[in-house]
């Protein structure tokens, strides 16, 4: 009879094992939480967060997304002398210079935003940006000389209100040396969109990519929305709005507080107005755009910042599905009806 006892124990053990297996199976689908990785790319911190993916799979999915951003940076960086965009900027003016199709397509999008914004948005401000030097290290402490700015303005006025960027199937023709491509207003947004596409191809359905304020969101955190803060423009530790967003959604903010210096009591910041050649003064100090994609959000946040409240909101109406949150100089704020925010307050 001894074997019967043994069998009983074996059966009991098997039952327990089966229970543990059930337990194991029912909890492998349990939320593994958010995995994040941060890299320094495109002159800013790029953070990718994915939800609902196991450790190793998250790393494997993020790598191609980071690589995509690095690829785009090497294609359209102004500061890498070897990039096709830097070579375009070095090429002689007034004749067509071949550029990779992807770059030409993105520039065409930029020129289109320029047209729709009646020149408030301009991807041809490279020489002006160099003059101001907001990307320099150490950062500038004084505006460029009056003569230098005047010189830029007169060369610029020779374009008679055109953007001076001609894109043809053969390449790109820059009109004169007042024009040089600075894709800063759209490149990060484009890179974020492309990186999100890489994540999607890797099977990631829930993710957040944040490239220095250009953000794109896919899905949620297991039904819970992504919880996003909007920086208070005058208090780096505070937020003025809290958003619970579910993808697909993009969010971009342009503010006068990102890169700036004070000279003689005047705040000079990095968002330049193509019409004046100086920091945009439209009565707004911060513009946030919610849009279906990051490229649009990126471009519109810059364009609205330059245009100001009235003209900016008129431009916004041309873009269905795009909403804005504006902070005025007097620290009052306005948000469009469809702007998604759990709560918002003045700075």
């Amino acid at each position, binding site marked *: 009879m001894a074997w019967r006892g043994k069998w009983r124990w074996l059966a009991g053990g098997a039952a327990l094992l089966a229970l543990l297996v059930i337990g194991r199976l029912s909890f492998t689908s349990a939320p593994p*939480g*958010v*995995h*994040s990785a*941060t*890299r*320094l*790319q495109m*002159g*800013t*911190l790029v*953070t990718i*967060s994915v939800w609902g993916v196991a*450790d190793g799979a998250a790393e494997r999915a993020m790598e191609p997304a980071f690589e995509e951003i690095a690829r785009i940076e090497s294609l359209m960086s102004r500061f890498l002398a070897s990039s096709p965009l830097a070579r375009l900027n070095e090429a002689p003016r007034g004749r067509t210079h071949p550029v990779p199709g992807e770059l030409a397509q993105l520039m065409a999008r930029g020129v289109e935003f320029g047209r729709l914004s009646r020149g408030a948005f301009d991807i041809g401000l490279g020489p002006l940006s160099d003059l101001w030097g907001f990307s320099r*290290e*150490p*950062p500038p402490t004084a505006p460029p000389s009056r003569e230098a700015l005047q010189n830029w303005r007169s060369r610029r006025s020779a374009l008679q209100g055109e953007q001076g960027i001609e894109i043809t199937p053969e390449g790109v023709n820059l009109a004169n040396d007042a024009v040089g491509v600075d894709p800063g207003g759209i490149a990060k947004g484009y890179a974020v969109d492309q990186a999100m596409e890489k994540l999607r191809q890797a099977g990631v359905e829930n993710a*957040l990519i*944040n490239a*220095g*304020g250009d*953000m794109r969101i896919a899905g949620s*955190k297991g039904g819970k929305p*992504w*919880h*996003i*803060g*909007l*920086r208070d423009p005058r208090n*780096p530790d505070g*937020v003025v709005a*809290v958003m619970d967003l579910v993808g697909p959604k993009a*969010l*971009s*903010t342009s*503010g006068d*507080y*990102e*890169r*700036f*210096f004070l000279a003689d009591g005047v705040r000079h910041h990095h968002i330049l107005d193509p019409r004046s050649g100086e920091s945009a003064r439209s009565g707004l100090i911060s513009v*946030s755009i919610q849009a279906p994609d990051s490229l649009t959000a990126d471009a519109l946040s810059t364009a609205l910042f330059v245009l100001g409240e009235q003209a900016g909101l008129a431009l916004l109406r041309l873009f269905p599905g795009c909403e804005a949150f504006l902070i005025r100089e007097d620290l009052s704020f306005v948000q469009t009806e469809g702007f998604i925010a759990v709560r918002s307050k003045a700075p």
Partner: protein
Amino acid sequence: MKILPLLAESTTPMDRLVMGISALGIVASAILTVSEPGRRVVVFRDNRPVLSLALDRDGKQEVAGRLGPVTIQVEQGRVRLLEYQSPRMIGTRTGWIQGAGRTAACVPCGIVLRVEGHPKKREGSLEFDAVSE
């Protein structure tokens, strides 16, 4: 109720031995896990790890940034970037960082710090997944 007399009365010598040995074992394992190397911060230069510092040893360490040396300070399990002054230096703005997965950076120097480990469940619901700025 007097616990100690009760304890003395209802334990055998072997019980007391087991109590003593297991208490010693628990204390020893607690000491071992506490003094275990524990959390570290990894320093990246241009996205490549160049240095790893234990967070349980206070001190300062210089690393070469793109624009010169950057000082990394570890104190009481926290870490921060020091000395390079720039409005783009997120390091100073972030201040001390501590929790696993937290990062600080000096963008122009090409330096990023990241506290190693698996990020715990977010402490409270106040923390954002991201901040748009």
